[in-house]
């Protein structure tokens, strides 16, 4: 009913993507992923440590049916490092999807637009399906699209901040202009914000902290899934036009008066 969603060489039914960070345990994360119905999840890279097999997320995630695991380039400070991280991620995932994120400042974790653009060009040329985490900048979105990105992923607010869809106006322009999917990533706190993205015609949302840091991540994953589905349906149904004045819904015949 939501309408399948084409991204890279894959087709997704669910328009809710999940990040796997910050969950209290791998088990909680897996239950949330299942409850969300997400078919795309993001993961990070870290150094291998002997004897830390319990941290392994690849095994359990890949055992879930129909999940595309997309490595991110978190930790990269510039384009060169991001390209390297993407190549390492591809070795692990065996697929060309990469969530490109370059945020050199740990205080706000805002994406570096110039390095992101440079890396996007290189990686797209190398055959990657690049999903760039980016500022909600409609001009940059077109540039990233021209660079060959498979989608654009504007931030709603700073990563993990839960400040919500502070960039709504810019995201709306991006959605109107885009020739590739627009996926809002980062900053969302409540399912209603995810619904708002979908109502304005966004293609998907990527949520992590809002679910991982909820009291009940599994239930919150369900709530986000329902909100995304509802928002998508609302967009498909077409919202009514706004009016400056009231437009009566009941006949105003004056039979009650004299």
């Amino acid at each position, binding site marked *: 009913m939501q309408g399948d969603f084409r991204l890279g060489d894959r087709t997704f039914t669910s328009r809710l993507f999940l990040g796997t960070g910050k969950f209290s345990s791998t088990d909680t994360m897996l239950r949330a992923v299942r409850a969300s119905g997400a078919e795309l999840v993001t993961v990070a890279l870290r150094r291998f440590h002997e004897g830390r097999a319990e941290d392994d997320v690849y095994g359990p995630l890949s055992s879930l049916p129909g999940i595309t695991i997309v490595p991110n380039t978190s930790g990269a400070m510039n384009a060169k490092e991001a390209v390297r991280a993407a*190549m390492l991620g591809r070795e692990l995932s065996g697929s060309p999807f990469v969530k490109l994120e370059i945020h050199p400042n740990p205080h706000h974790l805002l994406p570096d637009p110039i390095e992101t653009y440079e890396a996007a060009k290189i990686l797209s040329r190398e055959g990657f399906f690049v999903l760039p985490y980016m500022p909600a900048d409609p001009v940059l979105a077109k540039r990233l699209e021209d660079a060959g990105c498979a989608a654009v992923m504007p931030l709603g607010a700073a990563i993990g901040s839960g400040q919500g869809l502070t960039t709504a106006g810019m995201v709306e322009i991006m959605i109107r202009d885009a020739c590739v999917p627009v996926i809002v990533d980062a900053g969302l706190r409540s399912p209603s914000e995810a619904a708002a993205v979908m109502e304005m015609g966004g293609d998907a949302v990527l949520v992590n902290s809002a679910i991982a840091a909820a009291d009940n991540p599994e239930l919150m994953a369900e709530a986000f899934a329902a909100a995304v589905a509802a928002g998508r349906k609302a967009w498909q149904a077409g919202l009514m036009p706004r009016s400056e004045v009231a437009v009566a819904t009941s006949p105003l015949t004056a039979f009650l008066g004299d």
Partner: protein
Amino acid sequence: MRIRPQRAHGVRLGAGCILRVSGMVPRTRIRGDEFPPKVPGMNLVVNGKPHSHGGGGTLAELFEECRANPAQVAVMINGEVVRRAQWDSVKLVEGDQVEMLVFAAGG
């Protein structure tokens, strides 16, 4: 790292080249038999820590030493990503810096 045949022809010698040259220095001294007895194993840096490698410098041996599951690691040697298809032709040399990466939870 030596990946045959590219490296054998001396092509694309980057940072690894410098490391290999510095790795040669103790061996020259050993021949001059003043200094010091040859250390057992090959000295590598694995994930930022010194690692004495007891094998013949193959990645398969290194994975076994580190108890890493080859199916779940990605490898970078001296800053260069080594694709899975190239693993069998890698010959590690003294001083090589090896990074072994795995997936972790992340957003």
